[in-house]
């Protein structure tokens, strides 16, 4: 039982990282990408494979996973300078599904049957305790880092950019650079979370990183309140823990897995309709409606249309 709670704590922590990173892109950058899970996947597979095949030490492999995810983010952030709104959603989806499809079909990543035999980061009886502590320490560092970044001069620039991108450019500020940076930071955090996931759960399958997981992460960000530091943290914890409650019913797996899926979907839809403003809603930013109007009708300031 303790093991179960520790696993939940680790999963929740990883989701906090993912959602907080996603929030950099969605909330602070105002870029409506859905591709966050693919950076999670890139981090997870890179770190797992580097350590398995090349014997790279784990901390280094994890950092490499995060770095590669950050670099891969250019695949979405550069297009985001050309297209936005619906088109960015669809283009980012194409990017994500394309890469997941590759993972699904090549030998190196174990293809559809998944990658097993990943090295464990921590061994021994206290494994889960130690790992939970590691994950949550990293969470704390990342959350504090994000808070430091979004307050102060950088945060001032981000807020101004979200408020009015043209006026922002007319002051000499480079919106593109900020967007690309936020994308890389958010994706790098996702890559790190992926690496952490792999070296604890020791098994990866491509279908963890599909479109449904995009919708899940989006919900985590907006349920708590986008463009706030605490919103995605609470959203991630809530949406990780709630669907697990039915585990206590002790149903057979053939019923449990789909039932959990049904309940989770229902939960997401309920949130959309009952709490569209986010749990800390009512403010101008945050919540599901943060991107309507000006948020999506971004003009292409900077003149590189």
């Amino acid at each position, binding site marked *: 039982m303790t093991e179960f709670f520790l696993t939940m704590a680790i999963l929740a922590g990883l989701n906090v990282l993912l959602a907080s990173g996603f929030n950099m892109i969605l909330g602070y950058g105002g870029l409506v990408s859905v591709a966050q899970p693919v950076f999670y996947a890139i981090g997870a597979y890179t770190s797992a494979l580097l350590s398995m095949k090349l014997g790279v030490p784990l901390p280094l492999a994890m950092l490499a996973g995060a770095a590669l995810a950050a670099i891969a983010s250019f695949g979405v952030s550069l297009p985001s300078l050309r297209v936005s709104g619906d088109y960015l959603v669809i283009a980012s989806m194409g990017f994500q599904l394309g890469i997941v499809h590759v993972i699904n079909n090549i030998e190196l990543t174990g293809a559809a049957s998944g990658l097993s035999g990943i090295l464990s980061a921590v061994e021994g009886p206290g494994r889960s305790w130690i790992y939970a502590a590691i994950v949550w320490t990293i969470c704390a560092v990342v959350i504090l880092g994000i808070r430091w970044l979004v307050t102060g*001069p950088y945060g001032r620039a981000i807020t*101004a950019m*979200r408020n009015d991108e043209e006026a922002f*450019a007319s*002051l*000499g*500020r480079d919106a593109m*650079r900020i967007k690309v940076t936020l994308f890389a930071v958010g994706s790098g955090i996702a890559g790190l979370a992926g690496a952490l996931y792999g070296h604890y759960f020791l098994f990866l399958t491509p279908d963890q990183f599909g479109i449904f997981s995009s919708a899940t992460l989006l919900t985590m960000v907006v349920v708590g309140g986008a463009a706030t530091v605490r919103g995605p943290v609470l959203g991630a914890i809530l949406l990780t823990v709630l669907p697990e409650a039915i585990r206590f019913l002790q149903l057979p797996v053939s019923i449990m897995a789909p039932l959990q899926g049904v309940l989770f979907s229902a939960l997401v839809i309920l949130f959309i309709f009952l709490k569209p403003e986010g749990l800390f809603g009512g403010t101008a930013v945050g919540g599901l409606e943060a991107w309507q109007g000006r948020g999506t009708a971004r003009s292409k*300031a900077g*003149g590189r249309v």
Partner: protein
Amino acid sequence: MLSARGLTKKFGGVVVAQDLDLDLELGRVVALIGPNGAGKTTLFNMLTGFVRPDGGTISFDGRRIENMPAHQRARVGIARTWQRPRLFESLTLLDNVMVSERDYLGESIGNLIFRHGEVERAEDDARDRALGFLDRVGLAARADSLSTRLSYGQQKLVGLARALMNDGRCILLDEPMAGVEGRTIETMKAVVRAEAEAGKAICIVEHNIGFIRDICDSAVFMFNGRIVASGSIDDLLADKRLGALYFGSHA
């Protein structure tokens, strides 16, 4: 200083700018007048990089800039305001002005981490300068309030302060007096006049004739995307044909 030649722009099939030439000199204030829809704002947008001209050249300080993105034009010293104030509504007045600092070190995460001390010092400087500009427009006391709590005219003053913070040698003001009333009128006039006297190259789109007479050295009259006349203010205002164009299109 700033010199445009042959700027042309079509939106769809509509010609909104046809072969426009404009020269701005240091220490001179040029008024850009003409009825609504004449293409004055489009000209500003082409000069500042928000509309890409279909043809023509722009040079600033001897440098060709027509292919430069908007933010870089601001960085070389072309500041502008907008018809609406377009303040950042989630920021305080002080932050609104501070974010306009020309070399904004805090824009780079690298600087924030590796040049932390420098960033801090730059922030302190920027805060002092921003407060100075807010003081000039009479709003220093409200530096910490949100822009949404100001009157429209006051918001335009903050917009002006924000443009001045850029410290560019060329300033383009888009209808600075529109919507400005009461005490703010005099403040607006005084600040613009002071900038002109400080030797900036200024271009103003404006309908307020009194303001133009008061401040501008010469004027350019636009109609239907073309420059139809230019010269001294008095000559242009005395021209009956231009008057007919101006007021005719309002009817």
